[in-house]
């Protein structure tokens, strides 16, 4: 019989090696998957791990997808470190996109050049308000934030659908469910001509730096995390649990909203029903694979972005379904959890407790 026994001390080295081992295991399982599907595994892996980084254009696309993942994951890490389980970042992302679009649609040819900043700020506000709903329900009525935030995702998507199929539909858009393309002033400035990557990626990196300083160099950041590690110690120290709840949810809502605003005012340039592509959920994996550490999350956001792009390429180049993205994301999280379990526990073979087996 196999039994898991907790280790007295977990190795610091394995803490960082575990995500790498998980990645290796994911790659190996990926090879098996490609072989089973009758595809050349080298080509398959190339699509996922080489194509997304082989040119400036590829890098730009990689960063375009990594930006929302990183922004959302940063906010989620603040929640998860405080033991607050915001699972509804997708909804906050959608609301950010909706609010930003609402402002972007107000722009016309005469609007001032910095108009896009207003759009993005509206996005922040949208995500923040949506997360505040969860915070109020948890704070006032002790509602479970996992359920509330998750269910609000679907409410947010319905709001988005109502708007793009109804009042915000482009009158010149051949009845497609989408808004008109935003004015140039309402679009987030690109970093290089010809590439889609925009200033959002700089904001995300700045965000990672700010989160690092907050978590590891300020008393408030320390207080924020103690509630997650030992609630009684936080109470003894006098760190307010309500404050941690509000700070975590409002910040993660704001970063998810920012990501949503940057997405519609950036690469998408209009609001469509296809805005929610699961960044909010994938960011949960980004946060955990990155060990809830800002630097780790920068790396894991790039990795998850590779999976997104690889999945799309696998569809066009190898004729495989795009859901391969989800398979790889899931495999990675699964392998990470397995590696972490082995890090925290040791597996031991124990003989059956003296029970005599009788033969009939």
């Amino acid at each position: 019989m196999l039994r898991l026994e907790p280790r007295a001390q977990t190795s610091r080295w394995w803490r960082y090696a575990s995500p790498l081992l998980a990645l290796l295991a994911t790659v190996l399982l990926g090879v098996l998957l490609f072989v089973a599907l009758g595809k050349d595994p080298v080509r398959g892996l190339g699509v996922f791990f080489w194509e997304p980084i082989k040119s400036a254009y590829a890098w730009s696309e990689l960063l375009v997808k990594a930006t929302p993942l990183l922004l959302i994951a940063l906010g989620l890490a603040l929640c998860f470190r405080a033991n607050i389980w915001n699972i509804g970042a997708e909804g906050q992302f959608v609301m950010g996109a909706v609010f930003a679009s609402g402002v972007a649609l107000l722009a016309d040819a005469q609007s001032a050049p910095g108009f896009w900043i207003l759009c993005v700020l509206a996005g922040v506000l949208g995500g923040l308000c949506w997360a505040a709903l969860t915070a109020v329900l948890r704070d006032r009525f002790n509602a479970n934030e996992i359920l509330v935030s998750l269910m609000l995702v679907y409410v947010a998507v319905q709001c988005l659908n109502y708007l793009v199929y109804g009042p915000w539909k482009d009158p010149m858009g051949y009845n497609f469910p989408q808004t008109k393309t935003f004015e140039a002033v309402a679009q987030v400035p690109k970093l290089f001509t010809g590439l889609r990557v925009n200033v959002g990626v700089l904001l995300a990196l700045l965000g990672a730096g700010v989160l690092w300083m907050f978590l590891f160099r300020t008393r408030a950041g320390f207080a924020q995390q103690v509630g997650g590690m030992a609630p009684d110690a936080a109470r003894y120290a006098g760190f307010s649990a309500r404050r941690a709840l509000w700070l975590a949810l409002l910040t993660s809502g704001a970063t998810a909203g920012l990501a949503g605003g940057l997405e519609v005012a950036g690469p998408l340039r209009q609001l469509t029903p296809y805005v929610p592509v699961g960044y909010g959920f994938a960011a949960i994996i980004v946060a955990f694979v990155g060990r809830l550490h800002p630097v780790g999350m920068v790396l894991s956001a790039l990795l998850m972005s590779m999976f997104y792009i690889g999945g799309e390429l696998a569809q066009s180049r190898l004729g495989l379904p795009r859901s391969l993205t989800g398979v790889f994301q899931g495999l990675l999280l699964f392998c990470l959890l397995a590696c972490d379990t082995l890090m925290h526990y040791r597996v031991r073979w124990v003989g059956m407790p003296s029970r005599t087996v009788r033969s009939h």
Partner: protein
Amino acid sequence: MTGECNPRKETNASLSQLMIGSQPPELQVRAHTPGAEVLRVGGLSLPALDPFGVDLQGIDLSVRAGEIVGIAGVSGNGQRELLFALSGEDTRAPAASIQIEGQPVGRRHPNTRRALGLHFVPEERLGRGAVPSLSLAQNLLLTRQEAVADHGWRGWMGWLDLARLREQAADIIERYRVKAGGPDAAARSLSGGNLQKFIVGREIEAAPRVLIVSQPTWGVDVGAAAQIRAAILALRDAGCAVLVVSEELDELLELSDRLHVMAHGRLSPSLSRGEADVSRIGVWMSGLWQQEATHAAT
């Protein structure tokens, strides 16, 4: 093995000498000359927070500078609830029912009370007095502010001086002879006694006006226990008001200048060290001090 003996023929001191290799320092008993009242609890009644808790009923208590007041009693008679109300982890007490140097603090949070000089060592070391997964240095931040910037933009941000924090932790480790892998050792990697020495050190080094200690030596080895008691006595001699809550009567008789007994959420009148004898306190632990008072009156 360090020796063999018949425990019935040995004293506490000689037994501990065998166990730790040296005699614990002899406790100095000093004449008791208390100063001004620092902590005052008046008519504190508080219904319990959780259904299995004990309601506090009319608690009266006063601790003066330079004295140690002990609270004896079997655990689960309201000690936990009283300490929550005193530390500020429970802020439901009427404001004036708890006073620190005349300031009503019944509704104040732990931070505010700490700023007024009240420090507290809880009975649970791991998980309440210290965060198990954090280093000793980081655990200082639960109750100490010295390494937090206090002016300028850094003060506004609550910026931490990590070098200072580690230095401070190393200082406590050395001064209180804590056996630990240094300031970066995780709290959970320490033995109970060593972690308790660190926590007691952390609170004593804050130079409190009043220190509350719950079960100072629960599950602590003899050497560490003697050291912790000596530190508490030294703090008393330095003019701090000290309140000790303990289940161990021997310890309380050794430390306290005055002694209360807690039973069923009520607190007995105080006994001076001379009046306190084991059999009397034993009777009081069942809450029978009122009867004794009526007997005396008749």
